């Protein structure tokens, strides 16, 4: 257990010393994963609600596909985005490869199915419960979507947190499209992978402890906000 105690003290030293390099890495990680989750929520929530309420041929197939995409391997998504953004690829002229923007795109694709699939389920359940009522009130389609998303906001928040967890934890996609460039595209997970391969296990584990701490902090903040909101609503 020598490694663990060394890791803990390394983590403590990094946090207490406010190591500027580490702060930059933490900032980039939160920015990339946060942006990806935001984008995925903006697309995924309405998409999930629409899937729950709309009836069209092939809907079942689409639902299965989106559910299955919750298990997309990050490294495959990274590779696909790499081929798109590469200078030899169709979107090469934008010069996005090896930038944080490319990492946001990759993580958005990873998070989107989670948000869409879980919010479809939440909205479908609420529709089953309140559908009659809303119909009898003569609510419009967009009005129904908005009402149900609002009613399910606490469950949907959990869906978004699940997406955030996915984004924070993955290394395969950001490694490929970001390139793990020091000071530019190095995130917590790619830094951990790098330190592991340099054999500096206490530093790698120390960074891991900090990453887990960050994820806990984000979840705690969301939980407290949720509690406060619930109390206010009664």
């Amino acid at each position: 257990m020598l490694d663990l105690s060394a890791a803990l003290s390394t983590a403590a030293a990094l946090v207490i010393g406010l190591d500027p390099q580490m702060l930059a890495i933490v900032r980039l990680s939160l920015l990339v994963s946060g942006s990806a989750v935001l984008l995925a929520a903006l697309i995924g929530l309405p998409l999930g609600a629409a899937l729950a309420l709309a009836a069209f041929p092939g809907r079942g197939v689409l639902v299965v596909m989106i559910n299955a995409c919750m298990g997309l391997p990050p490294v495959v998504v990274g590779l696909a985005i790499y081929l798109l953004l590469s200078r030899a690829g169709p979107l090469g002229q934008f010069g996005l490869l090896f930038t944080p923007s490319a990492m946001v795109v990759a993580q958005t694709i990873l998070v989107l199915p989670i948000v869409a699939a879980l919010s479809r389920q939440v909205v479908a359940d609420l529709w089953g419960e309140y559908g009659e009522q809303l119909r009898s009130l003569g609510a419009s389609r967009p009005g129904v979507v908005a009402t149900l998303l609002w009613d399910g906001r606490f469950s949907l928040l959990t869906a978004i947190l699940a997406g955030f967890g996915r984004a924070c934890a993955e290394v395969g996609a950001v490694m490929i499209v970001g390139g793990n460039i020091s000071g530019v595209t190095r995130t917590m997970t790619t830094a951990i992978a790098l330190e592991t391969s340099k054999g500096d296990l206490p530093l790698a584990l120390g960074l891991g402890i900090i990453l887990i701490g960050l994820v806990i902090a984000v979840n705690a903040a969301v939980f407290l906000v949720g509690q406060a909101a619930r109390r206010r609503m009664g």
Partner: protein
Amino acid sequence: MLKRILLLAALLLSTGAIAEERFITVASTTSTDQSGLFGALLPAFQRDSGIAVRVVAVGTGQALRLGERGDADALLVHDRAGEDKFVAGGFGLDRRDVMYNDFVVVGPSSDPVGIKGLGNVTEAFKRIAAAKAPFASRGDDSGTNRSELRIWKSAGADLKADGIGWYRELGSGMGATLNTAAGMGAYALTDRGTWASFKNRQSLVILVEGDKALFNPYGSILVNPVLHSGIKAADALVWHHWLTGPKGQAAIAGFKIDGEQLFFPDAK
């Protein structure tokens, strides 16, 4: 709420624009990156030229492929045969010698096969194969992996047929391979730079060194700007000349870990 979302969206769109500095992308190898060499070279180059260098550190095989697709502006790699093929294929221009170091064979200090002190790496590999002692290979088409396979070939070992059970292809970078070798008490071929900065050695020690088959030269290549649009040929040329010129060469010679010089400049 909407205002907040817009604000966040604006913030997010600005992430791409934060670093509007002048930079080039260099695809290089894990061995140079993980030794810390770039940490010594890049700030000096940026001071001299005003150009930042973004290093994507991968195996030499992957670095060459990044170059073929135009995803790097210059390469710093170590596989002479692969480099010459890259240039001959029209993907790269003006391959120049930059520096060299050497590979070493590491293994458990108990050295069950008894290769310690051998001056001939081919003989050492023959003994490892004969004893079927565990050997951890990169298995990732890197420069080190390609060199290792050449030594096995000259040792006459048919790894596909006889390697079962002891020859482990890890598909990992140098450091990860050393971690595994340390964990299972295996022999491994590593470049001296990664070894010098590697911290999780456990019982691993250097057993064989100094054979000229272990010579490990690095070359700088410009990616051919004709093949893809967007390649920063002019700035890459500045880097290429700096690296192979007196300032770059002096910076390479001055890079040391624990007083040990890891790379020896040899640009002509």
